[in-house]
């Protein structure tokens, strides 16, 4: 079973979940879908294991032709999917016949949609994962985003399910309206490089997501926050800028104060660097970031480690068969 790419979309990549695990110490980030909630539900719809390889479609989706019949499911941001030019529902499994053309357009709600095909996208496993890491040309289709004319192989489904299955409405990630996203952060590491007034500034500010945001990092624009004495009274080997530190391993989700513009470290980020990370977006909040659009506003509020873990557990429970109704 193969799929032919007619139009690639803006930056469509093959991803699997949870991506490359245990490779951080080799300098390799995990990659994988930014919104793993929608991603896993798309796979579950078509009878796949929740982590199987599928397509992440960003802002403008691809147009593809199914060379054989396929069961597909699309979840996440609304990229107005159409099958042979007829609008089709998201969050629902449906059958594409051989020769039919699926097109995803520009995002009208959210930013990223996930297209799962029963059997999963079959690309070679590189360092434990099929996920594409474009920076180092790893995984996916030769480490790149889709290009017109390429074909994608699809695996043999191990479980056969039917069309018309859907994700329970209450179990879909609630896409924000009004363009404001409330995002929890866990203070740390290096939270003490910012004064308590600086923390309050950070939480009180509406941070605008800039267009210079991608799978490596999301740049956000807001106010200069106040750094503590640690940022100024330090050994020169930390670096010149107040936000410079002796290199640390970077957590995914870390809000990285690289000079003036903070960057939220996403799934394809560098794994080590010399800028402070005073706050970290926990994994259970990533679906919100993934569906935020440039110029929309992010507002942050602190949570404890346990609260962040509880949210994550809740999402993991949702990403199971119990969210799918026949």
């Amino acid at each position, binding site marked *: 079973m193969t799929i032919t790419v007619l139009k690639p979309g803006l930056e469509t990549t093959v991803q699997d979940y949870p991506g490359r695990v245990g490779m951080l110490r*080799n300098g390799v980030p995990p990659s994988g879908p930014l919104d793993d909630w929608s991603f896993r539900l798309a796979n579950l719809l078509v009878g796949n294991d929740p982590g199987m390889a599928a397509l992440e479609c960003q802002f403008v989706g691809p147009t593809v032709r199914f060379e054989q019949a396929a069961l597909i499911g699309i979840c996440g941001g609304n990229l107005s999917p159409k099958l042979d030019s007829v609008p089709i529902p998201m969050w629902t499994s449906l059958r594409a016949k051989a020769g039919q053309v699926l097109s995803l357009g520009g995002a009208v709600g959210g930013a990223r949609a996930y297209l799962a095909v029963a059997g999963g996208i079959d690309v070679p496993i590189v360092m434990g994962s099929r996920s594409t890491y474009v920076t180092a040309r*790893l995984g996916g289709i030769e480490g790149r985003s889709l290009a017109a004319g390429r074909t994608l192989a699809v695996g043999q489904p191990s479980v056969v399910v039917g069309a018309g299955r859907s994700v329970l409405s209450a179990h879909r990630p609630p896409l924000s309206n009004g363009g404001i996203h409330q995002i929890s952060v866990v203070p*740390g590491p290096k939270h003490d490089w910012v004064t308590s007034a600086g923390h309050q500034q950070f939480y009180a500010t509406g941070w605008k997501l800039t267009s210079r945001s991608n799978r490596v990092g999301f740049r956000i624009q807001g106010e200069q926050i106040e750094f503590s004495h640690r940022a100024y009274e330090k050994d020169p080997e930390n670096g010149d800028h107040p936000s410079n530190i002796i290199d640390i391993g970077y*957590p995914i989700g870390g809000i990285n104060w690289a000079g003036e513009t903070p960057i939220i470290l996403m799934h394809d980020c560098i794994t080590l660097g010399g800028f402070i990370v005073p706050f970290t977006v926990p994994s259970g909040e990533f679906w919100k970031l993934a569906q935020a659009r440039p110029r929309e506003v992010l507002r942050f509020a602190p949570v404890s480690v346990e609260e962040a873990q509880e949210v994550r*557990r809740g999402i993991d429970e949702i990403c199971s068969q119990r969210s799918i109704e026949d």
Partner: protein
Amino acid sequence: MIYSELEISPAGDRHLLATLGDDASLEANFITLHFTAELDKLAIVGLTDLIPSYNSILIQYDFNLLDFYDLCGELIRIYNALPSSSELEIASRLVTIPVLYFDPWTKDCIDDYRIKVAEREYDPLFVARVNNLRSPEEVVARHSGGEHWVVTVSSFPGLPILRPLDPRCGLLSPKYNPPRMWTPVGAIGVGGTSTSIYTIPSPGGYNLIGRTPIPVWDPSQALSAFKDNAILLRASDRVRFAPISREQYDDIENSVREGSYAYAIQPGMFSVKSYRTWLAMLAAGEAAEDRLSP
């Protein structure tokens, strides 16, 4: 300063940062890497990955298997039980990296930057000048004159950050500002007091002084040196840079392509005590050997 108590800070829901000291000295890194080796040995269930750096370790864990506070307690217990730094013996392989210094490819890259971004001195001349050396050849003599320590492998896949173990091999140079948009794979860069080897065609800020024909990152794991791991150099390895000619560069490049290149890797241990003794002898002018032999 090495902290008597481990400093731990959360980093979201599934990472934490453990910091062991407040400086970027080799001594702080020796303890950090010994701590890392202890964690590897203990294979704590639920500890899924870690990134050691100069004086800290970012730890990733699965909170369904490992409670945050239990992990903190465990890390503190292990840290407090570490031997004093003078007793540290760290597994450390010695890897020889052949380098064509002042190669044409990094020169092209520098020229490209000069045309497109900003005028600058040719990097080897710049590095020589800021280090008060008379010629780029003295840069080579210094850089290839002793062993370098792999502090960490990070930022980009397989990218090592090296510091000289032999103080006579040290070079100090400010990094590019603004950074380069691209760097050839295999480029040898120096910046601050560190050396690195570029593994992917990434942006970068280190001054370029040469290029190696041998991969230090092989995601296909086709070459035998990469059988167990896609990265050649690991934190706590030691590196010697061996100057080669253009002819040797081409020969080595061919043998890499044919899969017949034999990497020069010697297993060994690194004793912090012997290293300190050697440093003291060096300072007293008693170490005649040009190479490190702990």
